[in-house]
């Protein structure tokens, strides 16, 4: 199997890792040379971890299955091409318009979007029948879920082979409809939203809320998790889903989120969010 990945950022490299680990020959495309160099190093790191866990037999063999290209036309032999460029509608549409001219009709095209409409992207394609959403979760080598999302114009006869391919990649594929936030990002909203309401209503403080939720079986409390995800990322996801559901109050963002984002208190990445990480090395 030949897999093409467009975009050598964190998600692109993660997808390339799981594809190559499963025996696919992978072509990673990016226009930025330094990004490709970073990708090679990151892939080596990922394969080293996989080797240490006994998931692959050879780091070098896995790396040999990875090719790094700077021309989109070099993806023309792939039977599956996954786009993982920045989450901007115009950039994604422009990418698909370019690639569509270079590849045969039989190639499956997929987007790794987490928030854009699959239907809207499909509508920009000449051949939307072979187009799907494949939503991977970060970090891709560790998180097993892939949401498989056909558009209303997708040919569903492609679906079984897509799902089988994801299983070969040792993923857990779930078939879902194109709807704001798909499954996970939507269903998880109340975990953050209720925590913020409980905090603002002074029912409990941040450490107490996190302690109670962890004692119920969640690996991280909602505030610890928001700090890890990044408050800006979490707030953007909430806003996107709220807008996508035409301002249904179930998804209403909380002013605490916006205040924190405005203040640049974004969580672990800025060393301060709901908790203070300045002392951490």
């Amino acid at each position, binding site marked *: 199997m030949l897999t093409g990945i467009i975009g050598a950022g964190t998600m692109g490299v993660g997808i390339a890792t799981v594809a190559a680990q499963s025996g696919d020959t992978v072509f990673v495309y990016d226009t930025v040379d330094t990004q490709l160099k970073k990708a090679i190093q990151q892939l080596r790191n990922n394969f080293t971890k996989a080797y240490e866990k006994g998931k692959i037999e050879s780091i070098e063999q896995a790396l040999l299955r990875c090719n790094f290209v700077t021309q989109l036309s070099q993806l023309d032999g792939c039977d599956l091409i996954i786009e993982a460029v920045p989450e901007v509608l115009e950039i994604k549409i422009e990418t698909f318009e370019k690639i569509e001219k270079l590849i045969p009709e039989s190639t499956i095209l997929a987007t790794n979007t987490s928030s854009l409409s699959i239907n809207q992207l499909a509508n920009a394609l000449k051949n939307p029948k072979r187009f799907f959403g494949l939503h991977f979760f970060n970090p891709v080598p560790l998180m097993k*879920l892939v949401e498989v999302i056909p558009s209303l114009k997708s040919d569903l006869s492609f679906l079984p082979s897509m799902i089988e391919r994801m299983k070969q990649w040792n993923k857990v594929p779930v078939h879902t409809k194109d709807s704001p936030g798909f499954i996970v990002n939507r269903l998880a909203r109340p975990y953050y939203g*209720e925590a913020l309401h409980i905090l603002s209503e002074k029912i409990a403080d941040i450490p107490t809320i996190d302690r109670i939720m962890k004692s119920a079986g969640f690996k991280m409390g909602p505030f610890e998790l928001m700090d890890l995800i990044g408050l800006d990322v979490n707030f953007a996801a909430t806003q996107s889903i709220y807008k996508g559901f035409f301002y249904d109050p179930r998804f209403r963002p909380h002013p605490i989120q916006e205040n924190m984002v405005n203040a640049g208190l974004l969580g672990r990445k800025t060393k301060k969010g709901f908790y203070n990480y300045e002392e951490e090395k």
Partner: protein
Amino acid sequence: MNPWGLLGEASARTNWEKFLLSKEIPFLAIDRAPIKELKSISLVLIVDNDFRSKYTKKISLFEDHINPDAPIVANLIAASAARLTKYLKRPNRVVGIAICPPLGKYTIEFATTEITEEKMIATALQELKRLELPIETIGDRCGGVFPRTIAMLINEATFALQEGLASAEELDLAMKFGVNYPKGLLEWGDEIGAKFILDVIEGIRTETRDSRYRASPYLIRHAAMNLPLINS
């Protein structure tokens, strides 16, 4: 060891009776026990989720006969403890707990009102320790922390199921493998019970008047028919 007095409808009382038996805590049903035995009660537990139920309202009939040093523990699942106080001559003995079924699995969330006596707080905490569960103190608000959050998560999963976003199995797989939840939300809903989830959401909606707390028709119907959320 003094008994606890339970007040509530039979099915809720049975769940608590089983749990108390497992902890070797004696108990009696307040509306069934001989009046003279009510003086020995060390704690009164309202087990109905709905404080407006006919059982809960009976507390006013028995108040004078119950040990005056026993705190009365309101159930925070569908109402704040403050709302029980209006049925009592001595409202300053009311505290509240939010605890999610199955009993014995989750932290006890403990709350007091602005007028609860210190002595009642101390006695209630001392007595609740007999359940051998972690206790966290929270504000007096319907649904507490975990019951409120899990209820809203499960409610959203039932909206998604109702819309046909994915199958029940796939919705549950997604949350387990996409965000590492310990259980799928619908599976969790069936463990807790649709009626309980609905009671929490409707209770919060009543107290906050916030349209954010809107139960899905799927949840409402399954709670009404006492059907599981998955495979029904």
